[in-house]
């Protein structure tokens, strides 16, 4: 017996779209942040030293704070500074802040897999900075970055559930709303879990596939 009305299903689907929006927005912000952080960490200029240390400190610390605490900090910080943005934007920013730190570790690790001799060979060929990244480091680091990055983003889709705590009506919150409206809890949470699974599982498979393909190489 399915007890959902059209409205309930519409709510669930809307909430699912919100979850995808949070994941995508946060993921893209995280990728941008990770690239900036990695660039800071790899810079060899002497006057960049304080910034480099700051980047390392950021990456090391933010990964040790629960997502929900970061979410509260960003939410109340925005409130205190009088920035008037929607809870969704706050959630996307928080996800971006954390994803940047995790992805930075992955990107940095990937860049380090390119053999030193090749980097030096690119240097002595007098390739300018952009060409070293475009032709030598980038393509080879990519294969070490993409599979774990996809794997990580899959993990993060599930953490977007916490955005419910600052009032974003995403998938898990929709479940609570429907359950509180008196719909049978078992069915509601089954539906919610299934919808999450529908988003997450294909990406899990993709990440595994990428890993296998690269292992073959």
């Amino acid at each position, binding site marked *: 017996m399915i007890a959902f009305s059209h409205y309930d299903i519409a709510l669930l689907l809307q909430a699912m779209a919100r979850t995808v929006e949070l994941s995508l927005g946060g993921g893209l912000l995280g990728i941008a942040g990770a690239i900036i952080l990695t660039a800071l960490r790899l810079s060899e200029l002497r006057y960049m030293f304080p910034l480099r240390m700051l980047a390392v400190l950021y990456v090391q610390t933010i990964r040790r704070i629960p997502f929900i605490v970061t979410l509260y900090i960003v939410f109340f910080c925005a409130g205190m500074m009088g920035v008037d943005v929607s809870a969704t934007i706050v959630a996307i920013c928080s996800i971006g802040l954390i994803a940047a730190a995790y992805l930075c570790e992955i990107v940095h690790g990937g860049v380090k897999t390119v053999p030193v001799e090749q980097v030096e060979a690119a*240097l002595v060929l007098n390739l*300018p900075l952009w060409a070293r990244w475009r032709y030598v480091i980038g393509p*080879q680091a990519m294969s070490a970055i993409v599979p774990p990055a996809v794997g990580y983003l899959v993990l993060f889709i599930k953490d977007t559930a916490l955005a419910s705590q600052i009032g974003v009506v995403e998938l898990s919150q929709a479940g609570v709303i429907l359950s509180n409206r008196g719909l049978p809890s078992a069915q509601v949470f089954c539906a919610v879990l299934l919808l999450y699974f529908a988003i997450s599982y294909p990406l899990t498979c993709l990440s595994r596939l990428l890993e296998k393909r690269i292992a073959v190489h």
Partner: protein
Amino acid sequence: MPYIDVRDVCVRHGKNETLRHAGFEAERGEIVSFIGPSGSGKTTFLRTLIGLQPVWQGQMGVEGRIVDMAAPASARILREQAAIVFQQYGLFGHMSVLRNLTLAPTVVAKRSRRDAEHEARALLERLGLANKADMLPADLSGGQKQRVAIARALMLRPSLLLLDEPTSALDPHKVRDVGVLLRDLAQDGMTIVQVSHAMNVVSSLSDRIVLLEDGQVRAVGKGRGCAAQQPDIAAFMNTHGGDAAADPAGLRPDPEH
């Protein structure tokens, strides 16, 4: 005036001085070999010549043009006249042999791709690699990889070719091939500097031998075929000659790396 004149190169790691006022000269078309015990600074010295190793002070004259090696901008100038072949070759693993050769000419020197490929194919042909152009480095043998690395260096049309341990990873019969190739290149007017542990290669090939010890130049021997007769160098080669005899290809890994 010598063609290449390197003087007074000092390299410091903290308080340690890994090179102390090292220098050497070379005429055009000479083969120079750096020898010395492990940790004597041979590879470091070689790397300073192409701006991979920051130096405290030092200058390099090429045909009378003086480069201050300690200046930040010197690396680019040094790399315009020199090319290096690494011990591990450093071929770009994701690119075909041909693209390894044409990358720098097309991207840095802005030559047309067709022109660069034409030259690259001719060069590969000369080195006996004509049928390897479209292969990936991973599919080549050690000796083939090395020749590709040499070809890539030659595409830069350097006046100075540096080689780090060119024979250390090769089978004994391949060592002779490399020797012949280097001598050919020298005959064409290229100046070659190599670091080597294989004393038989050094003594048969070198026009000049520079013995380094503890970051300093201990002795220099000159003259094709007789460079090894300088007394200090002969003494070093005798004590390490046992090594060379037992390990003719220098197959033993260099503990410096």
